């Protein structure tokens, strides 16, 4: 099959959205988007549509797409999708080669991506392109419900600027979507800083996204500066969910060995799926 690779910037956001949704119609984790959400995704995660690609057959049939995020000397491959009827014909490989080449041209020293755990065709494709696993991350949900106990500790609620300052001092690795650049782009970042009577201290940063009628909490990052991470994490989450008792919450890319995981579970978070982060170094 002859595959033509066309910069994604030549398509409208609606065309890209329609193509993306068609590639994911049978996906193991259904995550359709509309043009508005894809536009936010492009903005928040620094997707460069001039370096992203749509694959098209010689007869004009759309085959798939892939997007490239670019930050200084790092790149991120995302939204790779191929229409179900044209899989296993080299389209995904061609899109990946195009993204890798574009990342290299832009001077990226590393290129990262995430693949949903057990998506073996994609995982094997990335292995073939010399990507190596760097970590496993959980995507969790929490339905709004009353907290089981009143929260403790002295809390300072952080505005966007202070919340971003906290993230920049975060000592551990953050995946692309939770990185400080993504949070800064999103402009709906808030946080809280907690001090407990026993000296325990830490902070929690999150996005508070306004929809038409309600808000949703997402992209949580927890850090314990002092004390027991489970206790500090529990109190941070208790304070958050007491303040936002009616908010749905979506915690993305929490490392599977995050020391606060027990706190998430204690507060009613449950796992939806896992992502494997992979890295390619040039």
């Amino acid at each position: 099959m002859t595959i033509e690779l066309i910069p994604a910037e030549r398509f409208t956001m609606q065309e890209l959205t329609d193509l993306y949704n068609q590639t994911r119609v049978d996906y193991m984790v259904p995550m359709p988007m509309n043009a508005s959400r894809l536009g936010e995704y492009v903005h928040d995660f620094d997707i460069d549509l001039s370096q992203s690609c749509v694959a098209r057959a010689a007869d004009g049939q759309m085959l798939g797409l892939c997007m490239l995020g670019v930050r200084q000397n790092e790149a991120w491959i995302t939204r790779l999708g191929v229409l179900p009827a044209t899989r296993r014909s080299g389209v995904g490989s061609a899109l990946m080669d195009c993204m890798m080449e574009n990342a290299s041209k832009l001077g990226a020293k590393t290129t990262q991506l995430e693949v949903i755990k057990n998506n073996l065709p994609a995982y094997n494709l990335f292995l073939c392109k010399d990507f190596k696993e760097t970590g496993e991350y959980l995507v969790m949900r929490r339905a709004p419900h009353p907290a089981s106990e009143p929260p403790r500790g002295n809390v300072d609620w952080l505005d966007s600027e202070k919340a971003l300052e906290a993230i920049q001092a975060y000592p551990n690795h953050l995946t692309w979507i939770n990185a400080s650049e993504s949070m800064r782009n999103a402009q709906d970042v808030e946080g809280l800083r907690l001090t407990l009577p026993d000296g325990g201290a830490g902070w929690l940063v999150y996005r508070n996204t306004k929809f038409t009628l309600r808000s949703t909490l997402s992209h949580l990052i927890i850090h314990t500066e002092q004390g027991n991470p489970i206790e500090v994490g529990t109190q941070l989450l208790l304070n958050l969910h007491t303040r936002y008792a009616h908010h749905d919450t979506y915690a993305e890319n929490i490392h599977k060995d995050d020391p606060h995981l027990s706190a998430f579970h204690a507060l009613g978070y449950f796992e939806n799926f896992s992502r494997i982060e992979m890295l390619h170094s040039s």
Partner: protein
Amino acid sequence: MAKILYIEDIKDNITLVQKIVTSRGHEFMSAENAETGLEMAFAHHPDLILLDLGLPDADGQTLSVWMRNDPILETVPIIVLTAWPEEVARHTVEAYNLNGYLCKPFTMAELVQIIDTVLNKSSA
């Protein structure tokens, strides 16, 4: 007979479910995204909502929260129809206080049975 709203973004699924639901004599309506689904729920007060979790604007979990937080819609039974794995669907139904689930692909008999069961419970 009941008034049933199906919120689902894939047209083929809507067509399939519409055939099943109307063949049982129910009134059927559909919406392809969360916001339209919410508007239709407010406007038509359905007896039952069939809800896909993967929607293009806000996902089904978030939409169910909006509905459960509203005094008009809080008691409307919601059945999740999803491609998510069964364990996730079960956790979602429990956590979000929903009324049942079916994982895709499902049979006509399974859909008819869960609709009848949930409608009977809600009218009891």
